[in-house]
């Protein structure tokens, strides 16, 4: 295990240990869902030939994401850099989950790597896992799932982002200039 990945594990463990005690049924699911929808509204439309990955955390009462991006990739052959995202999580933050976008030419299904990655963090209390399909649908899945079929069966849709949102925003800005 190299240094960056040791850090990933250490940061996540630190987040789990330093978090204020939160009973499982007190987990801020809806707040996290809303934050994740906002993240996908930003990063989802840009996920054309690239993926974004974020760890969700809470610090000083605010829910945020530490985000990394992949390099250029085609037909979903993308490598997610979770270590780069983990390195951005501030000390003392309570980690609440992860999200990642599938590129627009990628798969609608979870991959073995997606399921394995979330499973490794499923011990963190209140941990949630999310991804977006190429069509913009946003889904959560049970991070403790041990296989792709089980994870796929656990999915719940939490919303949708508009694929062309970025283009529309940019077009509006151009026309107003």
């Amino acid at each position: 295990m190299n240094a960056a990945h040791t850090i990933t594990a250490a940061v996540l463990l630190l987040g789990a240990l330093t978090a204020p005690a939160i009973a499982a049924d007190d987990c801020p699911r809806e707040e996290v869902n809303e934050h994740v929808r906002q993240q996908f509204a930003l990063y989802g439309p840009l996920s054309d030939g690239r993926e974004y990955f974020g760890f969700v955390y809470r610090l000083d009462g605010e829910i945020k994401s530490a985000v990394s991006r992949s390099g250029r990739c085609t037909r979903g052959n993308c490598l997610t850099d979770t270590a780069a995202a983990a390195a951005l999580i501030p000390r003392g933050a309570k980690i609440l989950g992860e999200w990642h976008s599938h590129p627009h030419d990628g798969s609608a299904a979870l991959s073995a790597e997606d399921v394995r990655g979330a499973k490794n963090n499923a011990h963190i209390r209140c941990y949630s896992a999310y991804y977006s399909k190429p069509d913009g649908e946003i889904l959560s899945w049970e991070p403790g799932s041990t296989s792709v079929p089980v994870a796929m069966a656990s999915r719940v849709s939490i919303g949708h982002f508009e694929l062309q949102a970025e283009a529309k925003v940019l077009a509006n800005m151009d026309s107003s200039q």
Partner: protein
Amino acid sequence: MASLLACASDPAGLPEKLRVAADSGAARFGNEAGAHRQYLDSFRRGVVDALIWGEQIGESRAASAAACERGGDLQLRILECGYADGVDAVMAGTAAVTLVDLGYRPSTIMGRVASAADSQLRLVETTHQRPWLLLSSPVADRLETDACYRLDGYLAPGAPDPLRYPDFSSQFIVFQSVPMSSCNAPAVR
């Protein structure tokens, strides 16, 4: 732990000839260590992609540059400005840089191109070794699954995240391929 954190503070591993451009670009976003690290990491990704894709990186660069200029979210801007600046640093040609400067190792491997189970990742299976992750590249995208090749390219420094990609050796970037009739030849490094 202190040494690990020190290592993490310089994830980019950029050669000196790119460092000035990267540091001045990062300075646009202030002195906060996390933002600086995020910018440099993305800058490096842009450099690597420009070296892999050459002129074909234009569309990706343009999308990043637009988001950099007009994005309303600071983190998104840092990621995309870093990426676009990294691409520009290579494409401008002012600093001749190669993948070797970034820690990649020229390598030749012989094996079968395959798809990972339950995944869209592509890989190269070789004799006696764990599969190599085959990164997207103009040459990689033309390789046929289940066919055997001699592949010339570069191995990435370090292994991919062992928690997420435990079954793979390093990442491989292919620049040249020669079809082979079989995959019995041992891997050459």
